[in-house]
């Protein structure tokens, strides 16, 4: 079964099957052709022999007439005169019937012609029997009388009827159908018939007429054994089968070997493929030929080399990426360390309730928030968004938060802080990154809230009665682009339980599956129903609804929100 799968074996099998068919057809053709050729040969031979015999006999008669041995009339006197057989012989034939006896006793003695022929034509007729295929060759007169048979059929009479019938057939009259046909064919130059002899043999019988002085005297008959020809034919067939068989064996061997040889590069290639499949990418196929298999091997080698280099590159890239990712994780940790995220943030300050929530879209986000007390009574809080994402954004975010903290001093109004931070960011910002910042300062004693916006989403004012308002915006521009921009500060007074809700565009621009934005309308709806909630509850509620809205959709931007409630003294 495994062998059947081999390409070389299948190829060899197909070729062998075709060859077997061709050879068998060829053998059949050859045997047929040879058989016909042999039969044709036998026929030619038979005709030639019969004609030769007839001619010799005719010449012989002509000569004896010319020599005066016999007259023409004597030669043509075909009257049969029975020979008296010795008593001994006749007595031996007592058990046989009269017809059989009559058949045997038809010996004759025509004016000494028989004895003359016995001494003269016997040797000529016997010559034909030198050929083993010739069974008999003899001359018959017009009446079917055979004066002199071949020596082998002229054995001495014994008185044993069966023996004599077989071995002494000379001087008998032949009137069987074949003999009659042969005699009647005298007007033809030759006559061929298949003849079943009374002894059981099947033979080809050739007849040619004998002319004496231009007159029909009789015929010359010659019998060829079919058996010998058949034997020769069957021997020939066996020979053909033997030759074809051995040829086939040689061819099968040769085809098997050559196909195996031809398929060897392919087999090696297949082994090479297996080796590569196991993971050995350094493998290179030896190229031994210039044919299609050689081309295939070359292409395979190229593929393996390419694959190896790709995998190496991929490994390198992956390791680099992993390195970056681990760095990003560290950066995230640092970033998270920068942002205050322990709540309640000021457990000992009952005047305010502040809560912040940040969910970065990537490991390191560009959003930030911060809050800290500038002095005993002033809380500074800020929210921002750095353009871009990832490490550069996060670095700029760290820089910005640091700058905000560094530049904030007691007594400074929000726009002064933003102006200073802006100036610093602009001074050293080769990649033209920018930051949106909203910064507010709350006097926790009075509820006075001063704020300045640097291009950020303007926050919501949550009044204690449940209504919400968008804070009035100031002259606004993102930080890091224009160093001379004049930021403004606005002031409002917060009553007890009023709140501020700050957010980044990650909230309002979150998208569901249909790419539909979460929108400020939805945000406002939620904020309206959150009058009595703590800042933490507000944040978590919004974030929870946001998650529901997004419903497994990936988060494209950082989500950051800061909620503050003024509780008063």
């Amino acid at each position: 079964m495994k062998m059947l799968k081999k390409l070389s074996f299948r190829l060899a099998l197909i070729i062998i099957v075709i060859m077997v068919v061709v050879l068998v057809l060829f053998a059949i053709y050859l045997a047929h052709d040879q058989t016909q050729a042999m039969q044709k040969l036998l026929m030619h031979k038979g005709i030639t022999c019969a004609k030769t015999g007839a001619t010799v006999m005719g010449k012989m008669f002509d000569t004896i007439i010319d020599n005066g041995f016999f007259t023409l009339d004597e030669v043509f006197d075909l009257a049969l005169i029975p020979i008296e057989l010795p008593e001994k012989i006749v007595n031996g034939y007592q058990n046989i019937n009269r017809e059989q006896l009559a058949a045997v006793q038809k010996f004759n003695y025509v004016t000494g012609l028989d004895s003359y022929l016995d001494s003269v034509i016997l040797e000529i007729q016997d010559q034909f029997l030198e050929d083993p295929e010739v069974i008999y060759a003899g001359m018959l007169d017009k009446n079917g009388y055979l004066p002199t048979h071949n020596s082998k059929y002229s054995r001495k009479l014994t008185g044993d009827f069966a023996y004599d019938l077989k071995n002494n057939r000379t001087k008998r009259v032949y009137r069987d159908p074949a003999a009659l046909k042969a005699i009647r064919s005298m007007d033809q130059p030759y006559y061929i018939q298949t003849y079943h002899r009374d002894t059981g043999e099947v033979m080809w019988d050739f007849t040619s007429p004998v002319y004496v002085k231009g007159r029909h005297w009789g015929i010359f008959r010659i019998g060829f054994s079919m058996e010998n020809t058949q034997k020769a034919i069957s021997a020939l067939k066996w020979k053909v089968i033997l030759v074809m068989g051995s040829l086939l064996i040689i061819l099968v061997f040769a085809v098997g070997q050559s196909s195996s040889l031809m398929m060897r590069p392919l087999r090696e290639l297949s082994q090479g493929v297996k080796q590569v499949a196991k993971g050995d990418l350094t493998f290179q196929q030896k190229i031994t030929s210039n044919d299609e298999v050689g081309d295939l091997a070359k292409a395979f080698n190229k593929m393996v080399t390419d694959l190896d280099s790709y995998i190496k590159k991929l490994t390198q890239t992956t390791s680099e990426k992993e390195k970056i990712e681990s760095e990003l994780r560290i950066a995230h940790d640092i970033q998270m360390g920068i942002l205050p995220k322990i709540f309640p943030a000021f457990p000992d300050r009952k005047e305010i309730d502040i809560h912040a929530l940040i969910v970065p879209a990537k490991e390191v986000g560009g959003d930030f928030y911060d809050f800290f007390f500038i002095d005993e009574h002033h809380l500074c809080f800020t929210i921002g968004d750095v353009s871009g994402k990832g490490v550069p954004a996060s670095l700029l975010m760290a820089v910005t938060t640091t700058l905000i903290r560094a530049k904030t001093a007691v007594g400074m109004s929000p726009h002064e802080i933003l102006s200073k931070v802006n100036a610093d960011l602009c001074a050293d910002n080769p990649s033209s990154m920018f930051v949106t910042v909203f910064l507010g300062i709350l006097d926790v004693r009075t509820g006075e809230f001063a704020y300045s916006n640097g291009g950020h989403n303007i926050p919501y004012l949550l009044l204690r009665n449940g209504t919400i308002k968008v804070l009035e915006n100031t002259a606004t521009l993102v930080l890091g682009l224009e160093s001379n921009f004049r930021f403004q500060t606005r002031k409002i007074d917060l009553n007890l339980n009023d709140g501020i809700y700050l957010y980044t565009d990650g909230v309002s621009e979150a998208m569901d599956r249909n790419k539909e934005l979460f929108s400020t309308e939805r945000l406002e709806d939620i904020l309206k129903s959150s009058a009595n909630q703590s800042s933490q509850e507000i944040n978590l509620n919004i974030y929870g609804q946001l998650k529901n809205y997004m419903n497994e959709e990936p988060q494209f931007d950082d989500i950051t929100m800061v909620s503050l409630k003024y509780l008063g003294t």
Partner: protein
Amino acid sequence: MILNHRLDLTHLFYRGVMILILLVSSVPLFGQDIEGAPRHQGRRWNQRQIVSSGDLTSFDKAVLKIAKKAAEECARALETAIDKGIKTEKEIFCPLYFPVMPLTSPRKFVTFYDDYTDTVITSIVDRYLDRNPDLAYVTLVDRNGYAPSHNAKYSQPISGNSEKDFQYSRSKRIFNDIAGYMSGRNRESFLLQIYFRDTGERLADLSVPVWVKGRHWGSLRVGYLIGG
């Protein structure tokens, strides 16, 4: 193609052999042409001369006397066989000749009676031949020229040397050349022919008929060189 070519060659060869047989067998066997023999009127056997009784020489007459005696003795021997029941009359007179196996060339034949003549006739004819050194042969032939038992001198077994066998193994042949044929058929008191023997000598052949039980059986032939 090659095969067919070979068949044709075989065919041609076979035909050639047949033609050769035709040529070899037809002419010399019947013509009995002998090298160096004088030719008159183009016919070889015309040189056979039949000598009439008036032309007999004294030597011929002496031979005739011997021949008649020998013929008489042979006839008596054959009659004795019949009388004694050794051979029947039918056997003695049966004109069937069976080729001797293995075949010889020229063919030799056996009959129903030649075993008897071998023992009896040979000794008779040899006696006459031995007594008369001038004679070439003394032999009994039947009506067809068949010599069942020749002189011992001419009855040597087949040696394989065909020239020697032709001369010395002449027993049981049918001598049906014209001289032999005529001598076998002769019913007159004698027939003297001068002829060329198939061995080449010019011989006088004197034949005297042999009568067995009143029937013409054959002849006794005596051959001698011309002029004794």
